């Protein structure tokens, strides 16, 4: 239960700091640590208790309490996008462990009204949702970010304008080197550069799922699945935000966006994934 301790340890600063805590001039994002801790914890519980997976009190209660607590804290920051993506990853892990889809579907239905209340109660979330429906309704106000982002992606063309030659990053785009870095990549390296990035995430998804399926034990399989989904889902959401396919959310592009703790935790996660993949090679070699 070391993981549980770690989770509690990391959960505390979330309340005090909003999203970041400063340590020696560097911003640390506790939710990045919490995400990985939640995935490791879920994989552990699922391995131990998967033989009675459909007894909700036995298998899901610990996961629900810990993950629910973490998500609640992340929600308080507030960081809606991270909460939702973490819940999606955990849901997929539980489903992969053989949990009946009826329960998951029911839980989803129950969550919908809550989701609606959360969305509508915070003013900025409601505005973002309306902006998403029609960015051009208010091109200089709420729609500004997404329109600037689309301009960046569009003007890049196939080959891009060349490195350092982009214009949109010069104070048009919000957060050009964190959340909207994909827009800058599209503008400066064009369709080709953007495709390379997307392709890299596809490769991570493919090899990650392969690792998960060939993992020597259940813990490794669930852990690999969770980590892969965490990386790929976030990339998917981030790129969708940049392209205006989903409402604006503050999700960075994993491994690419500027940000110390997220970079560090994502690389750590890839390390774990690589570690699991080694054992699979060995297993097949021995067999």
């Amino acid at each position: 239960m070391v993981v549980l301790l770690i989770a509690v340890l990391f959960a505390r600063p979330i309340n005090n700091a909003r999203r970041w805590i400063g340590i020696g001039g560097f911003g640390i994002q506790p939710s990045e640590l919490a995400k990985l801790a939640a995935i490791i914890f879920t994989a552990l519980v699922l391995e131990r208790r998967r033989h009675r997976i459909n007894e909700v009190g036995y298998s899901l209660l610990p996961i629900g309490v810990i993950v629910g607590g973490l998500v609640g804290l992340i929600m308080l920051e507030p960081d809606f996008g991270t909460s939702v993506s973490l819940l999606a990853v955990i849901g997929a892990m539980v489903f992969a462990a053989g949990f009946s889809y009826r329960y998951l579907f029911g839980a989803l239905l129950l969550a919908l009204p809550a989701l609606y209340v959360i969305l509508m109660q915070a003013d900025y979330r409601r505005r973002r949702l309306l902006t998403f429906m029609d960015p051009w309704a208010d091109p200089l106000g709420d729609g500004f970010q997404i329109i600037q982002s689309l301009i960046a992606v569009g003007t890049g063309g196939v080959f891009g304008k060349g490195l350092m030659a982009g214009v949109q990053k010069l104070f048009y785009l919000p957060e050009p080197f964190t959340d909207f870095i994909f827009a800058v990549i599209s503008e400066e390296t064009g369709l080709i550069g953007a495709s390379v990035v997307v392709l890299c995430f596809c490769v991570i998804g493919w090899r990650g799922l392969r690792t998960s399926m060939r993992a020597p034990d259940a813990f490794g399989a669930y852990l690999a699945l969770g980590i892969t989904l965490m990386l790929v889902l976030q990339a998917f959401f981030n790129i969708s935000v940049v392209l205006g396919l989903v409402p604006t959310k503050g999700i960075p592009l994993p491994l690419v966006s500027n940000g110390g703790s997220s970079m560090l935790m994502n690389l750590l996660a890839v390390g774990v994934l690589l570690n699991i993949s080694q054992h699979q090679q060995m297993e097949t070699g021995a067999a």
Partner: protein
Amino acid sequence: MARKLSSDKWLFVATLVLLCTSVVMVYSASALVALERYQQPYLFVTRQLMWACLGVAVLSIVMRID
């Protein structure tokens, strides 16, 4: 450490490609903002590079422990 462990090459290469993209693009995207706000064009990219190196170090350690 006599046994030879082979980890997933594809995964490793894809991660490294993203990392390199990251450093280049963060520099390209942040240089002028950093110059404007902090008078140091290399501020964000040096930090990013530091974290990337630290991250790769952590990655290689995590890869080797069981």
